[in-house]
């Protein structure tokens, strides 16, 4: 059995989500290779070759892949897919964008967001916003899969010694063009890989009050998140959103502040190791998933908490 994992990267660094996808690939057994499709992405290929347990890194370095447009990269994956039994990617915005397109080119189904590998063709995945876990079986000869990164412990980024093979195949579908990217700049860790996350909800009342979370986030080296209600109310941008329709996180510590705990939010954070909820409504559903609940006015509790840690 041979599995190709599509690397998550920005042409200069290999993103941690790749390590979770490699873990899922190793759970399936057999040989694991990594595809780095980008432009001037040699450093990423070098990093991918260090990943523990990887046999080969295929590096497709061409301007056509610079922004990893789905129209182009899916053609490359479909071509390389001929030599593999499984094609895997992390369930990131990129993975979700590219993989179904590659699956359809190969005339196979896709299994999205797997939580576990139950057998060579059997997997668990969440449906209905995580309210139900389905066990599904693929009948396809080739499996295209996206991996929920929080469900697989990352493999070591070091210790491997894969060979790097250049791939000269160039696919430019000619129907799409990158214009620009606006990526929020922050000194804080990334939401999906932070070990501590502190999130605010509608109870924060406005965007300015999110500054109350910043001091605590600084002290704990935490990422700041938000509920969909806070995003919908315009307090913070959408990339803060934790939930079924936003980011799925599973840090060591998740602090939910002024968040009631709608199903859609719980779906994005309930796999966190320790959950703290601070809310003045003692009946808020968030307390049902919290390890430690504090019924308090957040405007009093947050400054106290910042002072106490």
């Amino acid at each position, binding site marked *: 059995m041979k599995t190709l994992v599509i690397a998550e990267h920005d042409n200069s660094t290999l993103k941690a989500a790749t390590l979770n996808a490699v873990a899922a690939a190793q759970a399936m057994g057999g040989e694991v290779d990594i595809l780095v499709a980008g432009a001037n992405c040699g450093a990423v290929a070098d990093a991918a070759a260090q990943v523990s347990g990887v046999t080969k890194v295929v590096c497709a370095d061409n301007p056509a892949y610079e922004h990893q447009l789905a129209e182009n990269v*899916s053609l490359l994956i479909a071509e390389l897919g001929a030599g593999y039994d499984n094609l895997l990617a992390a369930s*990131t915005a990129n993975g979700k964008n590219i993989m179904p397109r590659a699956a359809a080119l190969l005339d*196979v189904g*896709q299994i999205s967001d797997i939580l576990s590998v139950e057998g060579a063709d059997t997997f668990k995945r969440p*449906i209905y916003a995580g309210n*139900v876990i389905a*066990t*599904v079986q693929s009948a396809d000869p080739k499996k295209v899969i996206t991996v929920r990164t929080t469900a697989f412990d990352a493999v070591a980024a070091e210790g491997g010694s894969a060979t790097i093979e250049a791939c000269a195949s160039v696919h430019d579908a000619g129907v799409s063009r990158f214009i620009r990217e*606006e990526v929020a700049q922050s000194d804080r860790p990334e939401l999906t890989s932070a070990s501590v996350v502190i999130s605010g909800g509608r109870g924060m009342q406005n965007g300015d009050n999110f500054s109350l979370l910043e001091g605590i986030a600084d002290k704990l080296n935490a990422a700041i998140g938000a509920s969909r209600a806070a995003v919908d109310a315009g307090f913070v941008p959408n990339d803060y959103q934790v939930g079924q329709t936003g980011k799925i996180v599973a840090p060591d510590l998740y602090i939910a502040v002024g968040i009631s705990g709608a199903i859609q939010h719980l779906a994005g954070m309930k796999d966190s190791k*320790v959950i703290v909820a601070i809310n003045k409504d003692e009946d808020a559903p968030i307390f049902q998933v919290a390890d430690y609940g504090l019924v308090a006015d957040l405007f009093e509790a947050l400054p106290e908490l910042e002072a106490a840690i």
Partner: protein
Amino acid sequence: MKALVAVKRVVDYNVKVRAKADGSDVDLNNVKMAINPFCEIAVEEAVRLKEAGTVSEIIAVSVGESSCQEQIRTALALGADRGIHVEVEGKPEPLSIAKLLKGVIEKESPDLVIMGKQSIDGDNNQTGQMLGALTGMGQGTFASEIKIADGAIEVIREVDGGLQTVALTLPAIITTDLRLNEPRYASLPNIMKAKKKPLDTYTPEDLSVAVTSHVTQVSVAPPPERAAGIKVEDVAQLVDKLKNEAKVIS
């Protein structure tokens, strides 16, 4: 410009869906059904493009059992001009739906296809991208803003950590994210008018598509429950617990 909007009939988003006790499937007896929220955003976007004079005709298409005509009528009440129902029994998979939509596209030749990024039942997030592969069209997935000018479309996409803007040649496929727009409610007069709008029905044979199964559901189960936690008295006790019991802060 002609726009095709795909809509799916799903369980209403307010319903908390549970697995049946025997684990055979989810329990959907007597639950309220509705148009998938992301599809509703797709319909709204098409209607706004029509109001702006960019789009001249909106076709709402749904793939599924005869009951999904209800959701096509909802789309017609929201402003779509006519409907197409592709009648398929059971739960067709994303790849089959994409093949059927491609069949409709070949008949209708739309300039723009707008659909939801995912349906809130299967949470697959696949059909739009698969339709892109099958038709060769560009895909603007997870769109939060679109602009059409000079035979091309600019799409602002929600990506990890920010926003990405891409330009696609038309015809193209757009899949909607939450912030694209806020859908309107259908007015009673429009609901009445929608009943008289044309609605055609096709079978997969009409579209020369074989509906096949690639993935079968073996069983379903509720997610693992978290053990009940405790309520702390104050911030001092919380910090003490986090330091000395959970050991997640130092």
